[in-house]
């Protein structure tokens, strides 16, 4: 099987970030929680930026062997 999916997919990362921002913009937080959220937000933002910057598209091809098992190889088309 191909490599397992990242736990923090980019989509989830962004969703969480948006949630953090919304909560910070909301009314119901004490300073301590606000600071914690802010720190988490900054960290997630940094991770997301790093991923955007570092990414290089991977192309693989999916084949089956004679027994019908999936094989994933690098694709060099």
């Amino acid at each position, binding site marked *: *099987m*191909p490599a*397992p*999916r*990242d736990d923090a*997919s*980019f*989509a989830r990362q*962004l969703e969480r*970030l*948006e949630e*953090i*921002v919304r909560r*910070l*913009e909301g*009314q119901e*937080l*004490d*300073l301590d929680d*606000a*600071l914690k959220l*802010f720190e988490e*937000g*900054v960290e997630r*933002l940094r991770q*997301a*930026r790093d*991923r*955007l910057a570092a*990414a*290089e*598209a*991977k*192309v*693989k*091809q*999916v*084949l*089956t062997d004679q027994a019908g098992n*999936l094989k*994933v190889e690098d*694709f060099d*088309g």
Partner: protein
Amino acid sequence: MGPGLDLFAAVAPEGAWTVGEVTRRARAVVEAGLAPLWVRGEISGFKAWQSGHWYFTLRDKSAQIRCVMFQKDNRRLPAGPRDGMQVFVFARPTVWEEKGEFRLTVLDLLSTEAGGLWQLAFEKAKKALARDGLLDPARKRPLPPYPRRIAVVTSPDGAALRDIIAVTARRWPIAELLVIPTRVQGEGAEVEICAALALLCRLEGLDVAIIGRGGGSREDLWTFNHERVARAVAALPIPVVSAVGHETDVTLCDLVADLRAPTPSAAAEAATPDRGDVATELAHLGARLARGLAARSGRIAERLDRTLDRMAAAMERRLERDRHAVGAAGGRLDALSPLKILERGYALARDAEGQVLKRVAQLTPGLAFRLRVTDGEVAARVGKS
């Protein structure tokens, strides 16, 4: 029959041919005398048998011929003809011995109507898909905004795949492309595509799929009009973008997909966000985050101030209340003060030592004492009785 057949013997009943012999002979004569040829006429009594062979009658105003088109010849065609359709057939005239019937073995069949068999097959399959609700717009799923794994079902050496890779690498290199190679045209291509789609269903963690190919002739694109391919596309567990041929070609595969893109490049664009746009979005989020915290802490400072103000106000009110209370208590104390009583006209008698003289016995005749009234003290003496 055969080389020993004696034609002269057959003029007498004794030399009669068998049915088999005469039909075999007729068949040999017809096949030798009429090479394969094009025939035009109108279809009637069309019937496709379970075996895949087609039987029909070709006729015009004056005559009719039974025709058969075997499965090996008709499988290249998208669909059987309709009764009443004007067609050209390329056929070998023969005699069908079992029925003693003159007929045409059809090798190819063209419709003279606009769109012909292709259009007919398309409409038929489309109707079947619609009947099963597969063309319902409500079925269309939104594409994921930030896909991580994109499956691509196409020919491994077509321009379509190169375009999809190039666009994805430029726009959204975070994605991993999983190419599932398949033939996209030619006989049996539809079976290969269905197998590729089945393979796709076994992959985990896919976010979106792209299926398609570059432009080509109607026959080349036909693979994507197979009802079977369309049903396999409709059954995919993830959203799928279809891009078959050019803008003007709409296939059944396009119709059942969650999104139809005009070209493979456009499909890759539709399936991916642009990295630059996402970076801008991140910058916005960063700004909102900072503003959010500033506003948050600003609000907290304000609230602190307000709290202090309220505390001060409360203290003040408290003090005020205390002051009043002290005043009231002072009043009550006053009322109890003996001086207040003197004010009402009473007087206080004390002897030289300051002892209060409360009883007659203490006030012996001639005793000098002091009398305290409200505004002072005077000397007094008990009169001699």
